[in-house]
């Protein structure tokens, strides 16, 4: 007894080049990729909440209760460099995905490692920045500005850090030859996550730093 075919063989563009027929789904897109987009849609609500909280609280510090946000308080030049770093990491991520689409595992690995490195530089920059802020008197518990600021940027930083761990896992897997063929999509799906994290930073950089 043969099982009748389910949805017709719609090709996922990611796998098209590899000549691999992707599994059949009603929409033609892969389950994992669809799941990642749904997750990113929900993450908008998460960061939206944190950003709104920050916006609502940042200027409500009573006088004399610690530092408040301003161009002077933040180190815009320093944070700008961080922004460029993260932006560039998005580029290397896109290049990694491009590489694996062409089957160039080695190049993909190089770009993945570069992305991880740049992400780490970003995190290091955040750590340095926060340490400086603490020295200037803004701790997590100092006032509502501190709580809101560190929570928002902290959540973002955690997202980046989780991403770095995942990047390193991808690198390890590629070294063990487990990232070839139809697994190429894993890199692309992770790339979506990484770009989303970058996009959230685009929002944070403007809203938190440039318009204090």
């Amino acid at each position, binding site marked *: 007894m043969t099982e009748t*075919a389910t*949805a*017709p*063989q*719609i*090709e996922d*563009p990611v796998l*098209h*080049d*590899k*000549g*691999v*027929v992707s599994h059949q789904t*009603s*929409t*033609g*897109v892969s389950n994992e990729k*669809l799941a990642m*987009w749904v997750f*990113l*849609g929900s*993450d*908008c*609500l998460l*960061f*939206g*909440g944190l*950003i*709104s909280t920050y*916006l*609502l609280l940042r*200027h*409500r510090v009573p006088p004399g209760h610690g530092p408040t946000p301003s*161009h002077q308080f933040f180190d*815009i*030049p320093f944070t*700008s460099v961080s*922004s*460029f770093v993260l*932006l*560039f990491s*998005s*580029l290397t*991520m*896109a*290049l990694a995905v*491009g590489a694996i689409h062409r089957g160039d595992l080695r190049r993909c690995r190089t770009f993945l490692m570069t992305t991880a490195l740049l992400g780490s530089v970003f995190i290091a920059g955040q750590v340095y920045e926060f340490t400086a802020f603490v020295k200037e008197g803004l701790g997590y518990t100092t006032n509502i500005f501190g709580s809101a600021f560190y929570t928002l940027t902290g959540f973002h930083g955690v997202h980046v850090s989780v991403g770095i761990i995942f990047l390193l896992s991808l690198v390890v897997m590629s070294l063990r030859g487990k990232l070839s*063929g139809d697994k190429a999509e894993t890199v*692309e799906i992770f*790339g979506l996550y990484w*770009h*989303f994290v*970058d*996009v959230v930073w*685009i*929002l944070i*950089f*403007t809203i938190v730093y*440039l*318009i204090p």
Partner: protein
Amino acid sequence: MSTSSTTGTTGGSGSEYAGEVPHADHEAHQHRHPTDATYIKVALILAALTALEVGTYFLDDASTTTLVVLLFPMMIIKFAVVCLWFMHLRFDNPIFKRIFVFGLMLAVVVYCIALTSMQFWSSSYGS
């Protein structure tokens, strides 16, 4: 790694599947992903926009309104560019765009309503 295609055809087979086949979609995928060169161009545009954004830092007397008017469009363009090119939304099945944009718009609308209700936009907020 060899990929066997002993089963099924690659795309476009006559389907007993009524109505939902995004064949047009399939055709659209023929122009493939952006090349590396495209990605680099996109990155350079983003870098340029970021540089412009940072430039506002040097406008010493800029009011919040001015900054918002200058920076928000750039922020939105950067956001859109990353989503459309780096995240492939421009080239992929529209379902991704719909889901993501829905979440994004929902967040913006809902939180803006909340901010409005808390009188965030009034000049006396926070004082």
